């Protein structure tokens, strides 16, 4: 392995836990085998009884369709499990590779610390994360987890960009925050999830300071988390109040304007 003395932290998205991987793979393989049998069965019948079973070729169509679906799903799962986002924090830069699972493309970039404009602590929506975290029988398994993440806004060759780095271990967050604090850029905490947004939309959302507040915690992230939750809730409540009052204002305005119009009519 190539030695990198300036490497502070290397982080890779987790692979699916073997138990869930085997379960998924078994189920899809069994579906595939059934589909293959289904598509071959009418041919077998026709050969054995010398024709007259044309009706059963409906099953061939069904079988072939199922075969196609299961092969595609198997291929997708294997691809996803072998293309894991990868982040490296160096003394002077961040390197990352991210994969677009839908388009099956990779995006690779290096951010020099000087290029960083904004660092935002956010929340990341991890769907089916139960299949990736340490497995425990006693724990309640929810379909999705909300994990902390870092949104790093940077500008390269005059083009602004943002990268979302999910944090799977809370201790890792401290390593990131400690290193990035050297930049002197104040951290902010973003209250909304930025799921299903493209880069432009995320940049726009992060630029709106209504949805974020300054992060002022010197305790380890693990301890800060609880307080952060309370702060987030407070911020959201304030935001809702502010919005509803401004909405009331605007309704008063609209009613007054309509009444004016009404009077003018």
């Amino acid at each position, binding site marked *: 392995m190539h030695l990198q003395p300036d490497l502070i932290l290397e982080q890779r998205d987790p*692979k*699916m836990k*073997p*138990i869930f*991987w*085997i379960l*998924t*793979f*078994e189920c899809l*393989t*069994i579906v595939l085998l059934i589909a293959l049998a289904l598509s071959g069965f009418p041919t077998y019948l026709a050969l054995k009884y010398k024709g007259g079973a044309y009706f059963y070729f409906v099953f061939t169509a069904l079988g072939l369709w199922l075969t196609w679906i299961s092969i595609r799903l198997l291929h997708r799962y*294997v691809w996803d*499990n*072998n293309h894991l986002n990868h982040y490296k924090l160096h003394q002077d830069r961040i390197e990352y590779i991210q994969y677009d699972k839908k388009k099956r493309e990779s995006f690779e970039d290096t951010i020099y610390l000087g290029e960083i404009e904004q660092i935002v602590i956010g929340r990341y929506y991890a769907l089916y994360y139960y299949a990736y975290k340490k497995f425990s029988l006693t724990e309640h398994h929810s379909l999705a987890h909300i994990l902390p993440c870092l949104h790093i806004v940077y500008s390269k060759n005059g083009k602004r960009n943002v990268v979302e780095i999910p944090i799977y271990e809370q201790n890792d967050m401290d390593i990131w925050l400690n290193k990035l604090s050297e930049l002197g850029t104040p951290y902010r905490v973003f209250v909304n999830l930025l799921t299903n947004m493209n880069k432009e939309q995320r940049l726009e959302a992060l630029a709106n300071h209504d949805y974020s507040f300054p992060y002022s915690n010197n305790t380890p992230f693990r301890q800060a988390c609880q307080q952060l939750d309370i702060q987030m809730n407070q911020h959201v409540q304030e935001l809702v109040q502010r919005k509803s009052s401004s909405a009331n204002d605007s309704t008063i305005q609209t009613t007054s304007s309509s009444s004016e119009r009404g009077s003018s009519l």
Partner: protein
Amino acid sequence: MISDIFISKWHLISVACTLIALIGLWLGKYDRKTIIKSGIISAVFFYLWITFPVAVYTFDDIRAHNRMVRELDKNYEKDLAREPRNIMTAAMGTFYDDGSDNISIYVGNYSSKSTFRGSMKMTMVDKDNQVVKELVFKDLVIEPGEKTRVAKTVSSVKIDKYNYQFFSTEQKK
């Protein structure tokens, strides 16, 4: 047989499932340690998963076999009272399963020396003395002391009585 619980043709399913798991782990590019560990765990899991139902069925079979052997022994006692030189006995037992009557037919060779070669005819009648079934089993070879099932059949009509006859193809020694 008790040993069928631990190794039977059904266990090929667990072998196949373990193979699929190993192929999956290999395609998923897991490290060697994970492949070995998870491979062993899944092999054990699939083995137990198959063994449990096989055990239930095997115990059922053993119980049915024991019941039929008791029936044979009872018939043999009766036959012996009629014909002291008799060595062959047959028995029929009905097992209720899924609403229809599964019939099991057994024969036993009570001799300690001579092998039986020949055929057996069994006639089953209902309670109105109507013949329901007449079965002939040819080319039977029953070793001394052997008590075995020769056929399994189904009947929609309740069998009330049955009788049997053995025809040896060999000269009596």
